[in-house]
């Protein structure tokens, strides 16, 4: 237990150092506004990818409707600040809670499904959320909700991201997290072992949705607008690509996936027609030749962590 806390402390220091470097570069104007924007985007995408990884990677439930929860967070957060005049903290809490609540309500019935069916159902749910938003004039309908103040800053995104990463890491190592992993490996066996599979599936789904909501609040308060077109199936697919690229079930993998893909997307801004083709080909080729993703498959990554831990202890 003690060593674990020590480990956490080290990671926290590493995060602080990383933050200091980037923040220093930002303050010294070495990083321009464009890359600052992309750094914020990377932070938001890391939250999205790691939260989806909780559902798809840890628990083995295949959700492709993550953009719907992102949208809920973005809109609820914006309503809090724009319409009701609350501050950013309240917006973050409300957006997270709303997306989490929706995730809970939606997860309870749909998580009885498995595999492909769950994928299609979540795709449908994501679309239903978007269609509903499109029809609510209170939040601007198709025009989107405008006039959102920029309350998101790089430090805010960075530290929220770090907090969520710590939460997810600890969740995975907790009894709850291990129950989720057991469900992923073999649901029926997990059930036989006395794990309440529904409870843990819904728990992972709710938490994942809630964090997507947090990301949504940060997102809409950085880009001034919450617009239904930003939350289509394409966005869900983007997030999924990040998780898969990094390796399903690997949190660091999701982080790398988010960083790499956000960076590629920004770098390919000058070749717009090729961007989506490269994206889709990457996806196919990756699945064909390295379906475990950059950071290793489930089995491999477990071994990898183990060897890392042993290495750490020796040190």
């Amino acid at each position, binding site marked *: 237990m003690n060593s674990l806390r020590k*480990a956490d402390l080290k990671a926290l220091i*590493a995060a602080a150092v990383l933050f200091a470097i980037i923040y220093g*570069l930002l303050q010294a104007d070495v*990083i321009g506004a464009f*890359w600052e924007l*992309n750094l914020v985007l990377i932070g938001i995408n890391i939250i999205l990818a790691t939260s989806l990884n909780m559902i798809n990677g840890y628990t083995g439930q295949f959700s492709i409707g993550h953009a719907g929860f992102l949208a809920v967070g973005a809109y609820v957060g914006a309503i809090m600040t724009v319409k009701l005049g609350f501050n950013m903290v309240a917006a973050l809490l409300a957006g997270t809670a709303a997306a989490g609540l929706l995730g809970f309500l939606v997860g309870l019935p749909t998580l009885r499904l498995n595999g492909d069916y769950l994928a299609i159902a979540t795709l449908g749910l994501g679309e239903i959320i978007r269609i509903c938003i499109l029809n609510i004039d209170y939040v601007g309908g198709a025009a989107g909700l405008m006039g959102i103040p920029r309350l998101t800053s790089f430090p805010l995104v960075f530290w929220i991201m770090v907090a969520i990463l710590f939460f997810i890491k600890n969740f995975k190592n907790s009894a709850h997290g291990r129950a989720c992993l057991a469900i992923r490996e073999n649901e029926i066996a997990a059930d036989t072992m006395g794990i309440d599979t529904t409870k843990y599936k819904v728990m992972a789904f709710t938490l994942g949705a809630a964090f997507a909501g947090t990301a949504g609040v940060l997102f809409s308060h950085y880009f001034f*607008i919450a*617009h239904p077109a930003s939350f289509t199936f394409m966005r869900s697919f983007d997030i999924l690509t990040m998780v898969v690229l990094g390796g399903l079930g690997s949190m660091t993998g999701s982080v790398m996936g988010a960083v790499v893909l956000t960076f590629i997307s920004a770098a390919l801004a*000058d070749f717009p027609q090729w961007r989506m083709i490269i994206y889709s080909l990457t996806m196919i080729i990756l699945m064909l030749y390295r379906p475990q993703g950059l950071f290793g498959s489930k089995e491999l990554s477990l071994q990898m962590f183990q060897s890392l831990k042993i290495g750490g202890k020796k040190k």
Partner: protein
Amino acid sequence: MTRKFKTLSVLAAGLTLALALGGCGGGSKSGGGDTVKLGGNLEMTGGSASYGISSKNAIELAIKQLNEKGGVNGKKLSLVVADNKSEATEATNAMQKLITQDKVAGVIGPNLSSAVIASTVVSGGAKTADIAPMATNPKVTVDDAGKVKPYNFRACFIDPFQGTVMARFALDTLHVKKAAIMIDNSSDYSKGLAQFFKEQFTKGGGTVVGEEVYLQKDTDFKATLTKLKSAGPDFLYIPGYYQEVGMIVKQAKELGLNVAMAGGDGWDSAKLAEIALPENLNNCYFSSLYSPDDDSALNKEFVAAYEKEYKAKPDVFAALSYDSTLLFAKAMEAAKSTDPEKIAAALETLDGFVGVSGPVKFDKFHNPIKAAVIIELKNGKQTFRTKVNP
């Protein structure tokens, strides 16, 4: 676990440095020199990619022609395009890139109102002028408090004007009383037109007997049209884009809904007649601000050059993007500078500019004062019907 975090931190830090260096590299090569960069924040991919591509073609044509004549203030122009993926948040991203990375003198685009509204915060903050060729929503140049955004302009008229013009035309010229409206629910342009049409139409003594919505990329409208038909309208207002409008008109006629139909400038495309079939396009009207058949010498020259270059007739997006480029050139000449802030100031007071879509002068809300034309479709052919002054 720590190791994971450490590796990650190191990797991320390395990548960040790479990004930062990349950023520097991009920044240092721009500025000065004898070319002036214009930015195009355009819809190159996504649902509205055809607008962005038209715009890009026309801007490139305008720049080529200007450079052949020796450029502006002795400097050559060049275009840097950033893709906004037809999306509001990406438009902000693209605007940021054009201004801070490419250090452009001014930006043309986006065409979608929502994308412009989101990105004006960036262009305004960076004090760089932006002309949106086809963004017709009032809020493109005016903020929520009703104050004009000093660096944002547009080359087209605004939604209220277009909706109002068609309502007046329907009441006074077509003498219809019962209108049905089909709104593209995924477009604020369509919603805006419908709203102002409805206001003016009911104010003038007409009634709106049915109002239905559809979404972009829908293909089957028969159910909705059957519902509208049962309300017995004598006029159908469809302020949408040609792809869906074509199918709506065709399917309405197939269902025997033989009433006058009308829409806005979204109808303006040769594709409309191909999709709806020419025989269905009779007693149909739309308001627009540009017609490739306009017989001014300037326009004829533009249409010929565009056809030679791209083997297609320019649409309204092309025409207004062409005008936007010329507006920037003119403003640079007037300001005798390529400083973004001075260009913006010059645009504000610009006078005597004539483009392919007619004369342009900005009012105090940065909206050009220009006339609307009502175009009648006869067997699918566009014929000029009347001109409505503001």
